[in-house]
């Protein structure tokens, strides 16, 4: 089945929230997932993989300065948000981080930084390098489930173009996983909400 990117974004946002993330992080996760899908990468699969392990308590970088590390593996959503929030630092030095879960999810945040800085950004993930200016992205091999070391640098070599998609075709197991999490954000219907929540009132059949 193919889905619109708007459906991907809306589902990713709800799923991330349903997995317990703050709304603001869910907004970023949704845009990140959409960006991956629009660039022919399996955003839905990557997010599903992350949210599946999110309850095994992934970590947030302990400090802004130096190499970003946590007490355990870093969450790519928290870390990705910190990366785009810290894009101004890329002009003076690379940003390095250790032990990042589902590192493919860092790429859209690097892309966001590149678009804002109007310059390519290169992400080195255990020796696999990916460069993007936010619009074009260089080819990637399979993304690992965990990266030991990730370095983000301003600059890099871009191909002249890269694949773009206007639809997403996720694996149904991944799509279902996101929808199960999204479901946790829905309030169970009660008779009261059915009548009042959407606003009863005067007749609508006249």
């Amino acid at each position, binding site marked *: 089945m*193919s*889905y619109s990117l*708007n459906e991907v974004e809306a589902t990713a946002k709800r799923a991330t929230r349903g997995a317990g993330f703050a*709304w603001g992080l869910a907004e970023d996760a949704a845009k990140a997932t959409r960006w991956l899908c629009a660039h022919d990468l399996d955003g839905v699969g990557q997010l599903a993989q992350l949210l599946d392990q999110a309850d095994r308590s992934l970590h947030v970088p302990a400090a802004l300065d130096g190499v970003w590390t946590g007490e355990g593996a870093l969450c790519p959503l928290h870390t990705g948000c*910190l990366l785009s*929030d*810290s894009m101004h630092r890329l002009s003076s030095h690379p940003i390095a981080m250790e032990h990042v879960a589902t590192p493919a999810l860092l790429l859209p945040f690097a892309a966001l930084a590149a678009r804002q800085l109007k310059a390519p950004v290169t992400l080195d993930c255990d020796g696999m390098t990916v460069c993007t200016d936010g619009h074009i992205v260089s080819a990637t091999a399979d993304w690992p489930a965990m990266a030991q070391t990730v370095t983000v640098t301003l600059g890099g070599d871009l191909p002249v173009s890269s694949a773009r998609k206007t639809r997403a075709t996720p694996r149904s197991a991944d799509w279902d996983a996101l929808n199960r999490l999204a479901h946790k954000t*829905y309030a169970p219907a009660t008779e009261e909400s059915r009548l009042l*929540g959407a*606003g009863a009132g005067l007749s609508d059949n006249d």
Partner: protein
Amino acid sequence: MEAPAQTTIPRRDPATVMRLSRLGSLHQCRLSFMRQLTRRMAKENWSFARPVFRIDENGVGCAVYSAKGPERTYSLVAFAHDLPPELRSDRVIAEAWDATFALFDGVPTEADIERLSQNVPLQEAGRVSESELSLSRANRSVRLWAHVVDRLAAGQQPDFEQIDKVGYLMRTTAVYGSGKFGAADRDKIAGRAEVQAPFQVEMLSVFLTRAFVRDLVEHMAHAKGGDAAVPLDPAIARRLGIGNSTGLGMAPFIVNHPILFNNWIMVREEAIARVRSVSEATESEAQVFRKLLRQSEVSVDRWRSEHPIQIEKLAALKADLSVLTAHVAADDLITDYPWNRLMTWAEGALSEEGQELVASLILEPYADLVDGLTSCMADSNGAAFAIDGAMDVTEVRNLIEESFGWALDLDWDAPENCARAWYVSEEKLEPRMGERFDEPIADYEQPLAPARDAALAYQALNGRQGTIAGFLLEHPEHRHTVRRAQMSRVAPYGEIRDNTISAQVLPIDMLRAKLSFFGATHFDPRSDRWVRICMYAGAPYPEDLTTETADHWVYPQEGAV
């Protein structure tokens, strides 16, 4: 913004404009999305066709209506159904409708029509594809439909009084666009000149729906009356619009799209400022205003509502109109910044309904100052989503103060200030609003209380130093609020300056703000959270669309003399 026009009078303060009671008093104007569409189609000489009309004598079948512009064709694919009365409901909980529609990007083949016939009638339960730009449905006005079919079948025209009482033969409910249920994303069409402005696809869909509904009622009259049946008098047909029932689901839209909503409001405020800055009007400009004011009186006279709040507002508006008419009779409306004088007078003399009617009406004589602004109403600023982490926390606090200064001292724990919570129901996946202290919904609350969240973030930022990136690392729960605060730098009209979860909040104010930009008229709240409106009443049908008929149709011709 468009070509720099001289404005000596500034735009109105967001603190004034963005109050819910004022947003809930907005009227259509020449920036409205329906009028943008009809003006463009007339100017570009679009052509219209009905390549398919296969409806049987029971009113069941399908039809295709095509609109051909300079570069592309768009087609409404309509399915007519025979709906038992007990199933007819406009509410989102409905599962069947009198008619269902998709707007197809191009001209559909028989295979497309077949595919759509399997999905469009199911609405939310079906799937459409990237070839479809919108999905919608409509129900008959039972009262008026039967009356019109019976009269036409008997060779007579319907009763004008009955027509005015209802105003439309069918009401659309949801008109889904932008990638919903598998349809094409906005990205697919955002670069096309003819649909670059907001909601042009949806407005086109309703414009064509109106033609279909007229044809269908004539078809049904003919099926019933045979050769005795007559077609609908064009003057009566023109008076008929398409109704729309809009529920709570639309209210969160203006909160969830602060940049887009800002662009609508800011463009209108810029247009008002430009016209207020006109130092001297011409006689003919003043005449345009006077004529449309008279026509507005006719329109307001036809505006009916049974809702106590709207009944009161309508009474105030009618009183405003008589004061306004007397005032402008004694004014030349030509010398000494006439429109600024009028606006300033209105602020002291009229209700918010009346003030906003004046604000919309003064734009009418000034197509040259106003219409170019329509290209600034879409949201093309995707970059505003990015958080500037280098910003100092003090600056974020200042931004919050700017939009939400009024909210910072409110006691947000007091039940009356947080009585409501917005949530999404499991049943229909639609936004709803409930009572926080009476229903088990707080755990499912949607982020639709920007003022409360701003107050919370402001408190958390108190005493902090350094960059906002460092703060957000520790406090991701304030991320959405910090994003909005930074967006306010480019979107000063992006935030509602009222409490969207208070015990007194009226979601219909949010609905009206949005619908007024569509160009809707005759707002008729059916409760505090859903509203009926009329679209395209008075508009030309496709075959009558010319540059003469394309713009002022919203003002009843009957008032023109």
